[in-house]
């Protein structure tokens, strides 16, 4: 067994020294070209660096070099109290802000045994599904853009604007909302919320049809995506791939059904799957997911219960403002929660949710103090990106762009 001292870390400085075991022999001989793609590249969807060994246009080996967006979030969160650390969760997968908030809060709630009122759960579902739609819209827009369908990009962002406006309405921020807090929500949704969401729900299915009209049967699109990057279900499971990538390979696994959270068991929706496992299949799955999200939001909005939106457990949740002028206990709890923060009991939990990219999980370990002892984010993009070298082998560089798009990676998610 190689010990740490014996292992030779490969140098990723552009020279072949130290990398010889990663590339084929033809590269060492000089037969193939080593091309650096990124980290600054419009099609890598973030700061992703790919070292490509090319034989002409064909990719022989693809070595992803991640870490350019690494900000040390997990370590940084150890230095902040739980509430302060939540703002960092927004900024991990920056297209799935509310989803990150949700999984973080679910982890805290599981660790502390905190209750979440039913109204809060329903609103969480609505917002997370809207977030899913918005994330898929970005995926669709940028994926199509990479494949030269420029108008789809603009149409998708037009819809996304409506969703971001709804987020601004509820939380004051379009993206980094920090709206889902441990024990429920930050505040109740305003009165205009229901109207705005219903308006969106009414208009949106037509829009999905619009995108489909431009892409689904488009021969150019089909040529570029059909049969590209086939991943068998076996491979997908071996690599730990989750989310639409896995469902497109045939396995109907969705955490919202398999391990329901936040009241998902109440809603009736399908899990879109496909058997081909290629880029086109993943496209179809995600388009259908958007429609299913609409269905979920519709149900949740119809069934939206009345009630409080935040737990009443004052040891973890700050008291309402109206109590601060008359209640001594409220003042003390308010003070301590906002300065020192709450102290969950010792222990560790893992909670996973279905993010637009796959299984997003938080491992949270508490040592009884106000700051997390260890927090680890199991991020789907990081896992899914690992399949890229396997999928890219033998394809052209142009296909590589499509493959990055189909993996739907967000670098914030990959690098943390």
């Amino acid at each position: 067994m190689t010990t740490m001292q014996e292992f030779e870390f490969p140098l990723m400085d552009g020279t072949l020294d130290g990398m010889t075991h990663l590339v084929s022999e033809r590269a060492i001989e000089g037969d193939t070209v080593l091309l650096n793609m990124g980290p600054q590249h419009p099609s890598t969807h973030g700061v992703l660096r790919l070292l490509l060994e090319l034989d002409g246009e064909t990719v022989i080996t693809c070595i992803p070099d991640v870490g350019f967006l690494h900000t040390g979030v997990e370590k940084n969160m150890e230095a902040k109290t739980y509430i302060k650390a939540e703002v960092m969760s927004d900024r991990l997968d920056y297209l799935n802000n509310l989803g990150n908030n949700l999984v973080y809060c679910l982890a805290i709630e599981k660790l502390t045994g905190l209750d979440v009122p039913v109204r809060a759960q329903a609103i969480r579902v609505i917002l997370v599904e809207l977030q899913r739609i918005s994330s898929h819209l970005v995926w669709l827009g940028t994926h199509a853009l990479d494949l030269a369908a420029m108008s789809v990009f603009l149409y998708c962002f037009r819809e996304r604007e409506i969703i971001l406006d709804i987020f601004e309405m509820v939380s004051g921020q379009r993206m980094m909302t920090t709206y889902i807090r441990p024990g429920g929500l930050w505040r109740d949704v305003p009165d205009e919320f229901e109207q705005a969401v219903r308006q969106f729900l009414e208009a949106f299915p037509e829009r999905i049809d619009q995108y489909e009209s431009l892409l689904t049967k488009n021969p150019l699109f089909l040529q570029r995506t059909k049969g590209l990057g086939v991943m068998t279900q076996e491979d997908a499971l071996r690599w730990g791939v989750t989310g639409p990538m896995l469902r497109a390979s045939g396995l109907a696994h969705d955490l919202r059904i398999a391990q329901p959270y936040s009241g998902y068991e109440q809603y009736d929706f399908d899990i879109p799957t496909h058997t081909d496992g290629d880029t086109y299949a993943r496209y179809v799955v995600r388009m259908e997911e958007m429609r299913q999200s609409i269905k979920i939001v519709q149900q949740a909005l119809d069934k939206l219960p009345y009630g409080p939106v935040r737990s009443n457990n004052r040891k973890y949740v700050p008291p309402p403002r109206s109590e601060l002028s008359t209640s001594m206990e409220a003042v003390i709890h308010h003070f301590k929660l906002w300065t020192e923060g709450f102290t969950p009991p010792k222990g560790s939990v893992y909670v996973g949710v279905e993010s637009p990219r796959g299984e997003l999980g938080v491992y949270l370990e508490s040592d009884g103090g106000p700051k997390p002892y260890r927090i680890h984010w199991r991020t789907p993009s990081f896992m899914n990106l690992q399949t890229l070298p396997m999928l890219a082998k033998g394809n052209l560089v142009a296909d590589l762009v499509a493959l990055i798009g189909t993996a739907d990676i967000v670098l914030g998610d990959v690098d943390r």
Partner: protein
Amino acid sequence: MAGIIGEILRGLSTTLHMAATKPVTIQYPEVKRPVRPRFKGRHHLMRYDNGMEKCIGCSLCSAACPADAIFVEAAENTDEERYSPGERYARVYEINMLRCIFCGYCEDACPTEAIVLGDNYELSFTDRRSSIYAKEMLLVPVDEGGKPTPQKVEPGIYTRSIPVMQDPKD
């Protein structure tokens, strides 16, 4: 072949149709979209109707800030020179706008509704020094019927630091 042409035509008809509809683009900066009521923009230090500052210099906002953007130094109120009700007021109050992430935790933590996040998002500076907003820049102007601070008041009236507040309604 016909199918291909058909599909391409179908796509083209979608885009042409969209070209004919009214664009959704707002021509910023000539036209500015109004922000939602809960929008988290530039901070304001609020006053009471009588002109007294709401901020009591408790530093809870500073403690709650995830980015360490707020710096507070407190001082003693006297009835001859009263800035806020109660014993304590903020003599120095600075927010470093470059560090601020506009999360609104300061607003949530404030026990007197003194610091609120307003609607202005058009903030830019040319050097780091000017990104530090001092108290004078954050305090809202005095209302009609109010007096500027420091005020000279009768003793024994303004003794309560935390006012009666409502839960946020918007």
